[in-house]
């Protein structure tokens, strides 16, 4: 076992644990904290995959912006904890468990039984320079210039939409 694989397994275990904890927590605020922890683990995994810029963006955008917004809303609405699960487990929950298990097993089957492509064994040699700010910038302002500009429109629309929706009628 190399150091890298040790780091990977640790991060993977951390991510899965925080994710599960987020789902099972009854307090939305605690859930949000666990999700933030999960996002940090994912950012570290991005680094492991040599995606430096995205790792930074993951922390800045997700934990810094989106999750702060979520926490802000939770506190604004002053939500109480979800009520206890009702006396008997709804049939829907069972169906959910079955479907989720089926989904998981299907994908695991694809990767581990049906086989992995040859490229899937090692990270490609050029990956080191791939995730840098320089190469990402070249891609975004070159090949993906039009989508990039359209994204700004999307964000503008979202701002306007959010303002209109959240504004108190009156």
């Amino acid at each position, binding site marked *: 076992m190399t150091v890298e694989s040790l780091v990977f397994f640790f991060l993977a275990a951390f991510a899965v644990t925080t994710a599960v904890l987020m789902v099972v927590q009854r307090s939305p605020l605690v859930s949000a904290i666990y999700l933030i922890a999960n996002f940090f683990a994912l950012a570290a995994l991005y680094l492991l995959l040599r995606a430096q810029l995205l790792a930074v963006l993951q922390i800045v955008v997700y934990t810094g912006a989106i999750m702060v917004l979520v926490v802000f809303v939770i506190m604004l609405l002053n939500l109480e904890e979800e009520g206890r699960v009702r006396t008997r487990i709804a049939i*829907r929950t069972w169906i959910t468990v079955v*479907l989720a298990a089926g*989904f998981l097993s*299907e994908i695991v*089957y*694809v990767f581990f039984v049906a086989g992995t492509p040859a490229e899937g064994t090692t990270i490609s040699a050029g990956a080191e320079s791939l995730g840098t700010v320089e190469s990402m910038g070249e891609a975004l302002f070159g090949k993906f210039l039009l989508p990039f500009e359209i994204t700004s429109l999307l964000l503008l629309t979202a701002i306007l939409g959010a303002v209109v929706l959240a504004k108190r009628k009156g």
Partner: protein
Amino acid sequence: MMPRLLTGYAVLFPLLGFLFNGLIGRKIRNEGIIAAIGCAAVGAGFVVACMSFFSMLGLPPEQRTLSVDLFPWIVAGGFRADVAFQLDQLSVVMMLIVTGVGFLIHVYSAGYMRGDPAFWRFFAYLNLFIFSMLTLILADNFLLMFLGWEGVGLCSYLLIGFWYDRKFEKGTTGDAAKKAFIVNRIGDFGFLTGMFLIYVTFGSLRFQTVFTQAATMTVGTPVVLWITLALFLGATGKSAQIPLFVWLPDAMAGPTPVSALIHAATMVTAGVYMVARCSVLYALAPVSMGIVASVGAATAFFAATVGLVQNDIKKVLAYSTISQLGYMFLALGVGAFSAGIFHVMTHAFFKALLFLGSGAVIHAMHDEQDIRRMGGLGKSLPVTYRTFLVGAIAIAGIPPFSGFFSKDEILWDAFSHGSWVLWLAGFAGAGLTALYMFRLVALTFQGEPRWDKGVHPHEAPATMTIPLLVLALLSALGGFAGIPQSLGGGNAFEQWLEPVFAPAGEKLAFAATHGNVAEYVLMGLSVAVALAGWYVARIWYLRRKEIPGLLVRRLPNTYRVLLNKYYVDELYDGAVVRPALSGSELLLWKGIDVNVIDRAVNGAAQSTAAAGRVLRLIQTGVVRNYVLVFLAGVVLMMGWLLAK
């Protein structure tokens, strides 16, 4: 080549005139400008036609056929139809008639239609008509010809119903227009069927291709019989022959220049032109030739008998037109194609003249059309009277006026190439023609005035009398273009058209019959019968006016049958129109439309609503259920992909 380029312009000018008057004519309050543009468009066409004619004269006869390909129109798979013109001896003659007579009638209309609120519309339609007619004449394939054929039908419809709110007989002029259009559609069915058969048989719709192939076929080929019969059905519709002639008398609902241009001089001869154009095909089908000749002879005779008793000045001329068209088909049916076209030309001159003269009379009498309330108009309308008389002499076939040469040629060919029965029908028709025409002259222009005191007839303005004078000149002298050999002439007209009809002539292979003693005898007889008709008309309608009344009392049933036009309209009404109407109402509307189609449409809507009432219960509004179903779909689809 000059004519190559020019031909396109001849068609283009009337189209431009139509577009100008049709699009912005309404904004132009000045009638002078509208009329000038309308006349100039057709006049330019006439100039082009003359130039084409003269440049063609300078060419040897075998080089006189010119093709003018403008642009491809429809190209689909192996099918191809071009907008292309074929200029040959036949189409140049038709072009001269259409643009020449058309120009005169345009000039006349400028005076006749003065003050009409829709002056611009009238000239737009007239130009559109000339455009369509030239397309019909000049087309080099059946499809383009059909376009022109439908175009002139449309213009006929628009112009018959030009005063669409005026009363006409039992309905409005709109009803007359619809009748003309629908009866023509029946003929068009024949034309279309013929066209389909031609395409299946020859694999092309180009005249040259079809006729070249046809020239190699043997006489009596069955499919050609069907083609020619179908095309002839189209011709009977457009050219008002038995059994589809019923629309032409009603077409008199339109303004008189329209009757002159469309329903006498040009459009109604389209059927004659079409049969003449397909002369090779007809030469291959002797049975069709026989039918064409018989229909023509029968129409010539029966229409003349109806014309005897009509009291509307335009109705008399309408039946006269049907009768004269019958002569043309008689000529075609006995293989005398150039004689038929010759009669088209002379008829265009004198019938346009007669109609325009009747228009001048109607104009002078303030829309009075009943000849029983006319009489003695010769004094007040000297120019109209004299020119009308020239037209009457010409149509009666009295030498040396134009009608004599063309009609006598037809009668002689009917006798020598057809049979004595055909000749006799034509001969009797000729006598009747003279009788009804001079009856019309006598009752309208001669004798004592029978109109109200308050009416003061006045001669028409110069724009109307000048065309009358020109047409009178043509009616008087036009016949000299085709003096037969037996009278010492060279029959220049026949020789001019000879190359066009040569392939058909080879199939028919007639022996030369000119210079026969019988020809002189028959010629003398037909002149005699025409003069007799004139004489009888003078006796009956000027000297001893009691005779017609006596005849009516003696033969009441015959009179009633003739007055009611052999009850053909009533027959068609009972046999076709009413069953079609009641069948449409009871079976198609209240039966199929209400019970089948409406129920199917409503049923589709109702079953959708019913299914929706059940299916909407699935929409619980609980978002998590939706997500669950969504996930189930994903799992199932992935499972299906993996299982494959």
